[in-house]
């Protein structure tokens, strides 16, 4: 097809469950492109030389490469190119913020809309899931053992990359199920859990061993792993830590949750199927979620699906400063989520029996820019008011997880308790690497995966240099 013809093709729309229906179920919102639509979308790619989109991808997927194969309807080749750079594309195709990474640098976006790279990544990965048992071959065994701490996006990516290079990889997971934030945090309606399971099974077939119910720092220390357990290198990717609360009165009331707890109950423990699943959650008729990020968005959309008549997102800055993805905000609005900007809680009010009955808020106005470059919210004196509610979900971030670091004193940390690494991803302990949230603080799935991929390459070099 000639470039002029390609330029005429409009961006394909992602088919979705209708908003009214999906606001009351946990099934996936996005339904995936039809075959013809996927090929048409792939044809929109102009196959730029030195394509900028690749540089925007934290794992460096050869985007024009897989799109060219897809445009030719050569799905096997498209999948091969995709998996060469990314071991978990069915996941990134669903949860990456493409609009700020690959798609933002697509030349088609200069005039019109960028190529829908995310939709196509998902399409190819789902095709591979239906047609392939194995996504790539593992190199002959090297005889080197690597331990990975945490089966979340960083750990799984690192595991896949190392297994493919022939190393013997064991992933230690603290929870009873692998996936990390992909299973406890991101809701079913954005990332179905059977997809995570399917991708994890692929890694197992590649030779990755996953051991659940092992907490590194408690069950074994890093010293044990490098010592008597006989691992030649370790990658620490144990993820997010303690949730941040506001330290305002009333946060002990029944009905106040951290987003981590609320989402873990519903996602990992499937509280939405209570009592078939015995883990409960206080559903709430009126739910207030505090925060403006993707986690807040996941929580407030979950509240709607749990049956909340009113699900309100309370954010202290204005819409423009919200860190959440535009697609999530749009989906939330369509599902009937209400937004209140420029307000923050000052107290959670309770009934005499200790249940949440309202949140008292104060209005904010935007002042001078702060360290993040965003305008700082400043409380407006005397503007307090109450929002009646029965559940409050606090989604204002997390701190570093102390579990591993407090039993590994030789690990150098920064002043916030996150692990310090060099440009190779190596910590202050030789052979011990780290990535994801325990290094970055709260970040995204794809940035964690980028860390896992870079660490795998560095570990491979480290092992080669020492053999």
């Amino acid at each position, binding site marked *: 097809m000639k470039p002029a013809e390609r330029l005429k093709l409009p961006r394909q729309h992602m088919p979705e469950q209708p908003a009214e229906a999906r606001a009351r179920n946990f099934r996936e919102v996005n339904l995936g492109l039809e075959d013809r639509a996927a090929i048409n979308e792939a044809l929109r790619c102009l196959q730029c030389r030195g394509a900028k989109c690749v540089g925007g991808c934290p794992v460096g997927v050869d985007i024009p490469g897989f799109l060219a194969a897809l445009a030719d309807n050569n799905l096997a080749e498209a999948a091969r190119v995709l998996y060469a750079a990314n071991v978990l594309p069915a996941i990134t195709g669903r949860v990456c913020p493409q609009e700020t990474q690959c798609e933002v640098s697509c030349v088609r976006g200069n005039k019109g809309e960028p190529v829908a790279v995310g939709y196509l990544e998902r399409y190819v990965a789902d095709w591979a899931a239906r047609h392939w048992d194995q996504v790539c071959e593992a190199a002959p065994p090297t005889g080197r053992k690597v331990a990975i701490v945490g089966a979340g996006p960083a750990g799984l990516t690192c595991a896949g990359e190392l297994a493919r290079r022939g190393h013997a990889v064991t992933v230690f997971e603290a929870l*009873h199920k692998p996936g990390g934030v992909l299973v*406890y945090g991101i809701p079913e309606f954005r990332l179905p859990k059977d997809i995570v399971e399917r991708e994890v099974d692929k890694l197992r077939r590649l030779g990755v061993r996953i051991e*659940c119910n092992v*907490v590194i720092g408690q*069950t074994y220390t890093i010293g044990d792993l490098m010592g008597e357990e006989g691992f030649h290198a370790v990658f620490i990717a144990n993820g997010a830590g*303690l949730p941040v609360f506001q330290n305002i009165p009333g946060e002990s009331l029944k009905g106040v949750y951290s987003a*981590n707890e609320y989402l873990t109950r519903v996602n990992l423990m499937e509280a939405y199927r*209570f009592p078939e699943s015995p883990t409960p959650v206080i559903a709430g008729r009126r739910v207030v979620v505090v925060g403006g990020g993707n986690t807040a968005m996941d929580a407030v959309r979950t509240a709607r699906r749990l049956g909340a008549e009113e699900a309100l997102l309370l954010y202290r800055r204005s819409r423009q400063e919200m860190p959440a993805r535009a697609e999530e905000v749009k989906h939330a609005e369509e599902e009937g989520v209400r937004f209140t900007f420029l307000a923050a809680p000052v107290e959670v009010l309770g009934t005499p029996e*200790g249940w949440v009955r309202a949140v008292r808020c104060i209005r904010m106005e935007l002042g001078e820019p702060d360290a993040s470059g965003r305008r700082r919210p400043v409380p407006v004196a005397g503007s307090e008011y109450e929002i009646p509610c029965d559940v409050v979900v606090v989604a204002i971030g997390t701190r570093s997880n102390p579990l591993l670091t407090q039993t590994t004193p030789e690990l150098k940390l920064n002043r916030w308790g996150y692990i310090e690494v060099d440009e190779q991803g190596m910590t202050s302990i030789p052979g011990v690497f780290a990535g994801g949230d325990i290094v970055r603080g709260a970040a995204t799935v794809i940035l964690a995966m980028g860390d896992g991929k870079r660490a795998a390459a560095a570990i491979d070099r480290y092992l080669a240099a020492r053999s």
Partner: protein
Amino acid sequence: MSAYPIRHARWLAPGVRCLIVEAPRVARRHRPGHFVIVRPVEGSERIPLTVAHADADAGTIMLVVQAVGATTRQLCDLEAGGEVRDVVGPLGRPTELERFGHVVLVGGGVGTAVIHPQAAALKKLGNKVSAVIGGRSRPYVILEEELGRICDAVYPCTDDGSHGFHGFVTARLARLIDEDPDPVRAVITAGPVPMMKAVAEVTRPAGIHTIASLNPIMVDGTGMCGGCRVQVGGKTLFACVDGPEFDAHRIDFDDLAGRLTAYRSQEQAALEHLRQAVGEGSCRLAGAVARATGDALGA
């Protein structure tokens, strides 16, 4: 994935089950004060349980469970030869034990299982160790024989006077503090929240170092969810990574008691659902409770 085989199972008291579970990695690393998170069967809830004893050589841990909600019922229903689906740990910080002099361990109900591992460790450090253990009536006082083999003295207490001291553990503790020739230097307590609160009040006037082991609602147990937050000395702390033991004189017990009731109505619904699923009436649970009573009374 492998589960965790049950070597032995027996009833300690009506509705209170003792399981010896193969968990070699936990047993190897266990120190007094540690807990584990358990899921009895696939799909069940995650619940925290203190490790009542660990045998590193045998690779086993002892768990003591009281059948209260659906999940604890499922655990109590397990038999030797069966398995626990998931056991993760050891979790939490171990008890800070030292040579105090005379230490009194105060256990109420299944809380007695929590103080059991401390007894041996404290004895080994050269302490005089007394245990004050309570229950509603005679069959509900657990581990008396086991503690008797370790401690210098064991003082069973029952609410109805059917065994040992007639009254609450706090009254017996107060008497010990007043009358024992060896001054009480430290108290470690575990049991129902009102009991631990009362213990803290008994030791507060004399400023006796008092540690309480808390069992708040928990989900992951690894410092991620924040469900187990407690107020200690006016600060929000997390029982899973900062505890589960804290200075009893600084704990806001009323706050903890309030939070523990959050799922009371759901617990009933889950239990009802479980009853229907296993076919209550002819049910194994009813049988189990009957056996439990028999076992405990025979013991």
